[in-house]
């Protein structure tokens, strides 16, 4: 395939990885542990949206050239709220206790793995092992100059990523809550010494991290399909993006996501596409060897 065409697909996939990675890096920075349930949070978001879009029979009449209807809006809202709340609840029942006990970040990471396994099992119990699509309709690709193809849905994915990034920027740099999140990420002990209720900041971080992940999940399902393990297999590219960009740095995570996505797609020009899942791993190892604190440095 044309390199430019691969670049376009890479950008789209990279946007999705990047958006998910922004959520992952936020919780990593504030909570300090690697959330191994993040991929499954993503799957939860997909299926919550799927419930609205297909099961409830909304969103059948498409808007313009897109494959989805207005049903996508309540679907996105439900997914954001659902995943955000789920993240907050699991923290409340599991990680908060471990934190109070003074458990290390490794214990918390293992706990997140357990939560991920449970979530994955429950999703499979409800929706089974088959793959679904949001819509059955064909999303006709637009032809750009140079015979490049891009689907309207894919333009929507990139636009939504951009929108989320701007929103996150405004939150982190223009609001007191966002600044307190950055402060807690820098040094949570000092944040509480300064009078910030870090428990509340953690809750807000889970909510925002979960929300971003939910949106990324919906975009991934739109681009391909949804299955009980779709998010889990997406965990490695997201972690690679987080480490590439430096832990706790959302802009780094977005850029890292784009790098991973584009490299993954471009690699198919030279190697068997079956090796695609290995590309994030190779990037990760190269990064760990030469710049373990990420391109922009990490906050922890």
């Amino acid at each position, binding site marked *: 395939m044309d390199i430019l065409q691969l670049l376009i697909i890479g950008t789209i996939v990279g946007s999705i990885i990047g958006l998910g990675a922004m959520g992952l890096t936020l919780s990593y920075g504030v909570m300090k542990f690697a959330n191994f349930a993040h991929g499954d949070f993503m799957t939860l978001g997909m299926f919550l949206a799927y419930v609205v879009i297909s099961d409830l029979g909304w969103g059948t009449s498409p808007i313009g050239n897109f494959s989805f209807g207005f049903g996508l809006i309540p679907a996105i809202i439900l997914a954001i709220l659902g995943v955000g709340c789920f993240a907050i609840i699991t923290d409340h029942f599991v990680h908060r206790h471990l934190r109070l006990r003074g458990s290390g970040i490794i214990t918390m990471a293992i706990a997140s793995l357990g939560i991920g396994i449970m979530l994955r099992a429950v999703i499979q119990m409800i929706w089974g092992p088959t793959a679904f699509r949001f819509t059955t309709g064909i999303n006709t690709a637009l032809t750009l100059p140079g015979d490049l193809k891009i689907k309207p849905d894919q333009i929507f994915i990139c636009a939504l990523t951009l929108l989320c990034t701007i929103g996150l920027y405004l939150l982190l740099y223009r609001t007191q809550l966002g600044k307190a999140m950055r*402060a807690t*990420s820098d040094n949570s002990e*000092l*944040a509480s*010494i*300064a*009078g*910030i209720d870090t428990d509340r900041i953690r809750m807000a971080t889970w909510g925002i991290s979960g929300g971003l992940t939910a949106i990324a999940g919906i975009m991934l399902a739109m681009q391909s399909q949804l299955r009980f393990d779709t998010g889990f297999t997406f965990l490695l590219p997201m972690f690679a993006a987080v480490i590439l960009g430096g832990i706790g740095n959302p802009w780094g995570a977005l850029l890292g996501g784009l790098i991973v996505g584009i490299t993954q797609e471009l690699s198919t020009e030279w190697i068997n596409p079956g090796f695609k899942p290995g590309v994030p791993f190779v990037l990760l190892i190269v990064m760990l060897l030469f710049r373990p604190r990420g391109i922009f440095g990490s906050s922890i």
Partner: protein
Amino acid sequence: MTALLSVNDVSTGYVGLEIVHKISIQVDKGEIVTIIGPNGAGKSTLLKAIAGVLTKFEGTVILNQQNVTKLSASNMVIAGASFVPQTDNIFPSLSIKENLEMGGFLRNSGINERIKEVLSMFPELEKRPNEKAGNLSGGQRQALAISRALMLDPVLLMLDEPTAALSPALREEIFDRIDTIRESGVAILMVEQNAKEALLRSDRGYVLVAGESVLEQTGPELVANPDVGRLFLGAERNQQTDNEGN
């Protein structure tokens, strides 16, 4: 007259390891009180326990006639006692202004006015409010950390070795600012390595050895005390020359 802060028989330390044993100290309104002692005496541990960072195994802490023994670090600030740790006392990825906003996180109004007031004491910070705190020099960091702690108009400021690792000139400057803060009515409780300079400016001082309080005198008395001079102030001179490089 009742004390602003009274620490009664407090024991504290880390899990399974008591470091400070039954210490009692007092700080009156508008006073500067300094705790000195050799390395490992438990000075910083005591300060952290008062600030609510570490839990107290026993004893009580009374601030402004309110029992604050069980308060968490974030609630101690609300009660009126601000704490500046010795290291990691700023948010490096936040700007100077944002650091101060975090100090005033619990303020409902007048945050910008208070930032102006606080910064007027430290002109070198005032000049570039949007500089990332991580780029500041050691002295500027200390200034920012103290400014941050003043954002909620505390009645008591607790400083853990505010002049450690600073050059003599910067040390002098920080001590001058501490005087200014005291003149504005804020009491100060600090732990100091540069004991002589600190004691000369203190109303009272406590000597802590191996987690026990061994002596309480006025600052100048302690400086004049031959035992204290031999044990802490003389030994400290070598340390000062060591620190010169920083």
